């Protein structure tokens, strides 16, 4: 045994006392024996019987011996990380969803009844308020520059085969062509350079082609274009989910509001609320629901985003008692909500990390105070102050790491469970939040444990045993 270590043991036992400069030695046999028994018990307690001494086993043993302290700190860290991971994952998914909507919907504008707030673009017609259908013709006859397509909708709750769903009235292109053609003379005059009616937006293709071919008459194209070319008054289109759940097939006849509608097609899945709807001719829906010529929303497809931006003012002027919003507005609202949630998640995370840090520090201080005898023994056995502080820091990092992993698991589980129900989006993992959460948990645990570790490193083995 090295000389330094031997002396450490004697020092710890209080049996060896080197008076500086004198070399005098005091020996008390009874007290030596008592203290030897105590040290052997402590060593056994710290290391365990027959267990080889290692840093990891020491930390593990300590955590198992005092689980309540460790678990409290671990739980707080886990909660902080889980809040961050859950909220960030939902936000990331929501942002991806918004981006995909932006790409899909491009330059679209929604015209809604006044006072309607919009939460979901695809459910913009589900608010129960209405606009007169004449607004659609008003927009058409105004020949606003950049308007490419119009899609008015009216939705009423119905039952199909015992299942509650929405019957949505849509207007096929042919209805618009007829009305647009009423202005042929004006449009010809404009095209020959005599008036400004029906001008086309710079860089856009101008008025849509009215000659029908197979690509336009394909009913399935509604899923992507949100427009159908032709739709019989007694025809219906069925959303993918509804068709699946009710076993409805193309060509079948369904009973809705006392009328028999023939299923002209089953739409491909879009991942939106359209998947659970029945679509029919707007005028047929108005007739069946006895609503008169009204709609819930008018979707205006601009030829490009620039044109859509310019159209808002003109539409506002044309329809003063309606609310005109662009997809950019909707996205902006969503982005603001996301940003707020994002900031909130970091605030919650920060607060929980502070509490976690304080809790770890308090647990560690208490731990050091409780383990004075063990630490003193370790030091008497030759453990250096850095080894002791490493022991404390290792325990703290174990708490931080396990807390972080548990928090990540909890957060992801919450995000996957809540995300689709709360926001209607399929959740994907936010890697950023996972990495930030783990690093922060570890850092907070280490920083909070540093003062107790430092205190442990400066313990005097003699004083430890005297206290004990």
């Amino acid at each position: 045994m090295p000389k330094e270590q031997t002396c450490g043991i004697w020092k710890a036992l209080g049996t060896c006392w080197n008076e500086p400069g004198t070399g005098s030695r005091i020996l008390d046999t009874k007290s030596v024996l008592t203290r030897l028994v105590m040290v052997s018990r402590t060593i056994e307690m710290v290391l365990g019987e027959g267990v080889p001494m290692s840093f990891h086993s020491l930390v593990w043993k300590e955590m198992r011996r005092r689980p309540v302290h460790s678990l409290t700190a671990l739980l707080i860290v886990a909660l902080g990380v889980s809040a961050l991971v859950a909220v960030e994952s939902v936000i990331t998914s929501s942002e991806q969803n918004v981006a995909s909507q932006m790409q899909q919907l491009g330059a679209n504008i929604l015209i809604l009844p006044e006072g309607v707030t919009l939460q979901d673009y695809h459910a913009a017609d589900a608010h129960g308020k209405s606009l007169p259908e004449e607004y659609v013709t008003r927009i058409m006859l105004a020949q606003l520059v950049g308007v490419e397509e119009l899609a008015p909708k009216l939705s009423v709750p119905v039952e199909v085969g015992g299942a509650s769903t929405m019957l949505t009235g849509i207007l096929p292109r042919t209805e618009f062509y007829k009305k647009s053609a009423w202005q042929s003379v004006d449009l010809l005059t404009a095209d020959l350079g005599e008036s400004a009616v029906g001008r086309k937006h710079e860089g856009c293709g101008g008025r849509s082609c009215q000659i029908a071919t197979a690509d336009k008459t394909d009913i399935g194209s509604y899923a992507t274009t949100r427009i159908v070319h032709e739709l019989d008054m007694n025809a219906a289109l069925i959303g993918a989910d509804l068709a699946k759940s009710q076993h409805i097939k193309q060509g079948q006849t369904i009973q809705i509001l006392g009328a028999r509608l023939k299923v002209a097609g089953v739409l491909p899945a879009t991942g939106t609320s359209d998947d659970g709807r029945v679509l029919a001719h707007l005028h047929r829906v108005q007739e069946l629901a006895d609503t008169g010529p009204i709609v819930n929303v008018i979707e205006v497809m601009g030829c490009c985003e620039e044109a859509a931006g310019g159209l808002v003012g003109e539409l506002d002027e044309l329809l003063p008692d309606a609310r005109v919003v662009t997809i950019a507005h909707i996205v902006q609202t969503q982005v603001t909500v996301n940003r707020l949630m994002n900031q909130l998640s970091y605030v919650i995370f920060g607060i929980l990390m502070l509490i976690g840090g304080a809790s770890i520090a308090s647990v560690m201080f208490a731990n050091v105070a409780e383990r004075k005898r063990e630490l003193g023994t370790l030091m008497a056995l030759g453990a250096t102050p850095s080894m002791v502080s490493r022991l404390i820091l290792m325990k703290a990092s174990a708490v931080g790491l396990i807390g972080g992993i548990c928090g990540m698991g909890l957060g992801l589980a919450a995000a996957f469970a809540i995300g689709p129900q709360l926001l209607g989006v399929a959740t994907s993992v936010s890697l950023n939040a996972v990495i930030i959460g783990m690093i922060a948990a570890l850092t907070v645990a280490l920083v909070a444990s540093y003062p107790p570790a430092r205190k442990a490193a400066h313990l005097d083995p003699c004083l430890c045993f005297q206290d004990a």
Partner: protein
Amino acid sequence: MRYLFCLIAAVSFAPASSIIAGTTEQVETAAESGKYTYVMFYRSNDDATQRMARAVQSHVAEVGDRTTWVTVNVHDRREAPLVKRFDASRIPLPAVFGVAPNGAVTGVFREKVNEEQLHMAILTPMYSDMVKGLQSQRIAVVCMMPDADAPIPTGVKALQQNPAFEGKLHQVRACASDSSEAEFFRRMHVDPDLDAPVVLVFAPPGTHVGTFEATVSGQELAQALHRSGKCNCSKCQRNRRAASGKR
């Protein structure tokens, strides 16, 4: 005073809609006699309706030999066929439609109308034929001929035989020597003092594809249509997709 004015206004256009039975028949009769009909739809006898009625009445009084007018209350069940034909319950009212003898709608004016607009809705027979073609979703190929004997340009014949345009074309032939078509030539920006035919092509609902000389080939006409993207053949669809991709 206001009530008296309303009463006079109501009576002034009452004969057209109520006393003379069957507005639909009136429109048909006018068409048979080669007259234009202004069909005015309204919901209530409000100020806007009265203003519009006065404007139409004053115009018809000027060109009574060629025009007539009827008023239709959209709430009147007897007028349902006409309301349905023009989908009048779903348009902003009051509104007036100009209807040519061939059934083509030559103008639609909502909420207010003036003399000039109503005058512009009166077309020559060939012009209204062209508009009818466009309203049937066909490409109008208009041959402006110097005289009745001039042959149709070969390019137009070739275009008609092109399988890509089968069933999609509506040919119109107007002669400069026909004085009744002088207005058509003026509006199409074609000098009636022609040596050779001029070909104009329009796509529905009213896009000017181009004006061509008599020597134009069928291929050149087809190319112009493809370039415009209005013929909706597979080539045009590809161009449109490419254009939207660039945007």
